[in-house]
């Protein structure tokens, strides 16, 4: 019974191919849009999540802020207010798990005939633990290297590719600002940070070596910034205050004076970035759902036309024994077949579109079975919901009225 009705629904659709196709198109576009938008939204969320994970958790960055000593104010991180001693004092706080003082700069790196401009980070070995950054091959430098101002360097993936190509970077000698460094480690890839920088385009050296051989600080022991990791998420709020109080005290800043440093909660910034992406993903999904709704209305419209057009057929069927239920099922089934076939094509098109977006724009795409099932079940319900009214209208016809209809 059901099978023969299904095949009848199929034939009825075939009777007016262009119309069926156009009706289906609404569904195809709706479902395709939902699948595509969900894939893009989830992809964006995933890439943000990965960059946040790659950054490390429960992080603060303490930057020396603009100094206005000589009247001209320079930007953040340009004064030399923070010192390595500030860093170790922060490290002694109860709320803080680990700290890493950081000096940064840019430099041209030369290896054999190749050269590459990249950012140099001078820091201590705890930097690698805070950022949960391991080497792919080789090793990281030790406390002894820092004490002895060793000329050793750990390179990021991008730098290694540009300088050494296919060759093994470990043990090679590179020249940074005319100082030779031995490459002792290759970092594993972290990809983009959540603000879009390539985190692998970096060379990391001991902080002492960076200060003495590369950046030539005027004030010995000063650092650009300090990275600090709180013991856990619940210490984040308190830690920000205790760090601020500690540094104010150490820098002898009186109560009515401005800080000469700033404390940034990186985790909070990352969280807000993640919230933004979530909102974007939701918006994309919501807009796509509207097209699904429009597709559903299209089905209802065509089914109403179809019921009117086939009133006489309904009358014949009723005269030879079709019950209300049979007629209802027949038209409902037609609406469902249209929406399910449209849905299948839509899913295929959405997936195709997602791969196209990945190929053309290089955007990260995440296709979950969940989103496909969701789109599918929503579309099927839309078909039933919008098919029900025309079908019940057909079923409620009186046989004699339907037969007389011209």
């Amino acid at each position, binding site marked *: *019974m059901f099978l*023969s009705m299904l095949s009848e629904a199929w034939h009825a659709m075939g009777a007016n191919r262009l119309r069926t196709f156009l009706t289906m198109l609404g569904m195809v576009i709706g479902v395709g849009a939902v699948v595509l938008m969900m894939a893009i939204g989830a992809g964006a969320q995933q890439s943000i999540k990965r960059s946040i994970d790659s950054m490390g958790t429960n992080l603060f960055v303490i930057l020396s802020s603009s100094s206005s000593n000589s009247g001209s104010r320079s930007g953040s991180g340009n004064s030399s207010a923070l010192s390595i001693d500030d860093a170790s004092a922060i490290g002694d706080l109860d709320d803080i798990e680990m700290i890493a003082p950081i000096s940064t700069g840019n430099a041209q790196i030369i290896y054999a005939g190749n050269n590459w401009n990249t950012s140099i980070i001078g820091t201590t070995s705890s930097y690698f633990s805070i950022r949960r950054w391991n080497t792919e091959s080789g090793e990281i430098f030790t406390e002894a290297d820092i004490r002895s101002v060793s000329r050793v360097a750990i390179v990021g993936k991008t730098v290694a590719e540009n300088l050494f190509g296919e060759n093994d970077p470990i043990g090679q000698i590179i020249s940074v600002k005319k100082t030779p460094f031995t490459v002792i480690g290759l970092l594993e890839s972290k990809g983009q940070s959540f603000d879009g920088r390539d985190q692998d385009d970096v060379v990391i050296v001991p902080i002492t070596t960076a200060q003495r051989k590369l950046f030539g600080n005027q004030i010995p022991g000063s650092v650009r910034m300090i990275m600090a990791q709180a013991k856990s998420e619940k210490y984040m709020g308190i830690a920000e205050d205790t760090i601020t109080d500690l540094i104010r005290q150490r820098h002898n800043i009186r109560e009515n004076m401005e800080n000469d440093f700033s404390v940034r909660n990186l985790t909070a910034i990352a969280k807000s970035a993640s919230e933004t992406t979530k909102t974007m993903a939701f918006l994309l999904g919501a807009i796509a759902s509207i097209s699904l709704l429009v597709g559903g209305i299209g089905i209802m419209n065509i089914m109403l036309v179809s019921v009117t057009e086939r009133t006489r057929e309904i009358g014949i069927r009723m005269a*030879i*024994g*079709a*019950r209300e239920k049979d007629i209802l099922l027949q038209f409902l089934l037609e609406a469902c077949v249209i929406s399910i076939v449209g849905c299948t094509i839509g899913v295929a098109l959405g997936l195709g579109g997602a791969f196209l977006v990945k190929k053309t724009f290089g955007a990260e795409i995440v296709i979950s079975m969940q989103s496909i099932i969701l789109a599918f079940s929503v579309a099927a319900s839309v078909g039933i919901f919008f098919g029900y009214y025309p079908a019940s209208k057909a079923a409620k016809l009186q*046989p004699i009225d339907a037969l007389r209809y011209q």
Partner: protein
Amino acid sequence: MAKPIIQIKELYKDYQNVAGIFPVLKNVSLTINHGDYVAIMGPSGSGKSTFMNILGCLDRPTKGSYILDSHDVSTLNNNELAKLRNKTIGFVFQGFNLLARSSLVDNVALPLVYAKDQKELRVKISKNILERMGLGQYFDSKPNQISGGQQQRTAIARALVNQPKIILADEPTGNLDSKTTHEIMKIFDELNQIGNTIILITHENDIADHAKRQIHFLDGKILEDHMTEKNKVTV
């Protein structure tokens, strides 16, 4: 003694339109027995079509009782009426009323679909009846690929497929030429001879002469109800 299959007592049917209530059938009483061959006649507007719709359970009377095959039709709901139409009545319409998109076999099998028979059985029975109607080579044709007479034979096959107790034919030859009319009427005569109850609605005398009994309607009432020559011959 013949058993009654249709018993109608004091039946009225009114239609309501903007001008008010308009009576179509006024106090009609009638009994039709198993194996009868009845022609219902009358000019347009005499109420014969309305009467046929009520007989066919497509419409309900305003007042009066209608007992069809021992079911009191006025007490049945829409589903029960649908079942009664499916099992008890075979319709043959003036305009054939076949489904244009379906093959002849599918058209004939449709009442069996609603009777929930198995597909193999449906196809077998339908082909059998189509063959009896001389349409053996048209199983998969569509109604618009065959002639009017062939279409009406398909419709008769559909009416017979559920082995109904009554065949109700509303002007079955109204759209056919005289040669085809003759062929179709021959089928009805034969069906009656093997025991089918047949009710014909017609306004043509030569069609009505095939029947054993003629009932004339005028202004919503039965004017005349008499046996024909043919009845006397068979009895």
